[in-house]
């Protein structure tokens, strides 16, 4: 089954543009995640939102970000993923794999093992930075090429 062809059809040939938009949303939501976590971990108490509300925003935006990240990653894995050159493409693939490795670790700590909460800020920050690196090695290149 030509999944990429089908996705291209339903996006009127603009699959890459949709990926660009979704990857940007994921990166923005990852930034929001870090900000909300900083609030409820007490690092940024001056932020104009209650700790309880920050938790709710963190969870809701995180689930949206996860869903979108899985969708974008799926379209990469069944489509163009594989080449190891040039360096930008290689780095994009490495950061993509790293993002899901960090997600695996974060949600294993948070939802499965339920131990090691002290590592969550580190894992969350690393995840945000990794999404930034993914964005920089794909969307930034896409935009700057125009």
């Amino acid at each position, binding site marked *: 089954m030509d999944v990429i062809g089908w996705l*291209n059809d339903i996006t009127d040939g603009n699959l890459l543009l949709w990926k660009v938009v979704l990857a940007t949303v994921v990166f923005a939501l990852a930034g929001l995640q870090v900000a909300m976590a900083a609030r409820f971990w007490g690092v940024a108490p001056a932020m104009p939102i209650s700790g309880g509300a920050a938790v709710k925003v963190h969870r809701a935006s995180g689930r949206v970000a996860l869903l979108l990240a899985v969708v974008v990653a799926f379209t*990469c894995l069944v*489509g163009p993923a594989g080449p190891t050159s040039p360096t930008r493409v290689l780095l994009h*693939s490495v950061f993509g*794999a*790293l993002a*899901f490795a960090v997600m695996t670790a974060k949600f294993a700590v948070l*939802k*499965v093992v339920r131990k090691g909460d002290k590592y969550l800020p580190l894992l969350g920050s690393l995840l945000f930075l990794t999404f930034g690196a993914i964005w920089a090695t794909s969307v930034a290149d896409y935009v700057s*090429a125009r």
Partner: protein
Amino acid sequence: MVKASSRVWTVLVLLFAVFAVAGPVKMIRTRADSGGATGTSSTGDTVVMAKIAFAPTSLTVAKGTQVVFRNDDVAPHTVTAQGGGSVDSGIIGPGKTFRLVVNESLDYFCEIHPQMKAKVLLTG
């Protein structure tokens, strides 16, 4: 007793792990399939754009042949002459083609992905 939500999260964590491994596995398989080759050559008259690369990277045709550049990629590409030549396809969207009658050798690249380079050579 394990809660249903815990089971769901366990499945999701496994899914994330699969995604984390799938990329490197595909990179290794792609490299193995290509045998580590960095370029290919052909005497057909079609160039395919896929996986952010032209294939073949060296095409040999007779003068006056119409070469078809077909974009099978998810990304838009261009066929642009290197060194300021007159050939420029403009944006070739996914699923689109660009046709060019070749009367002289052509070194070309993709303006959007400058690392994509290939050439068309003339026989004789």
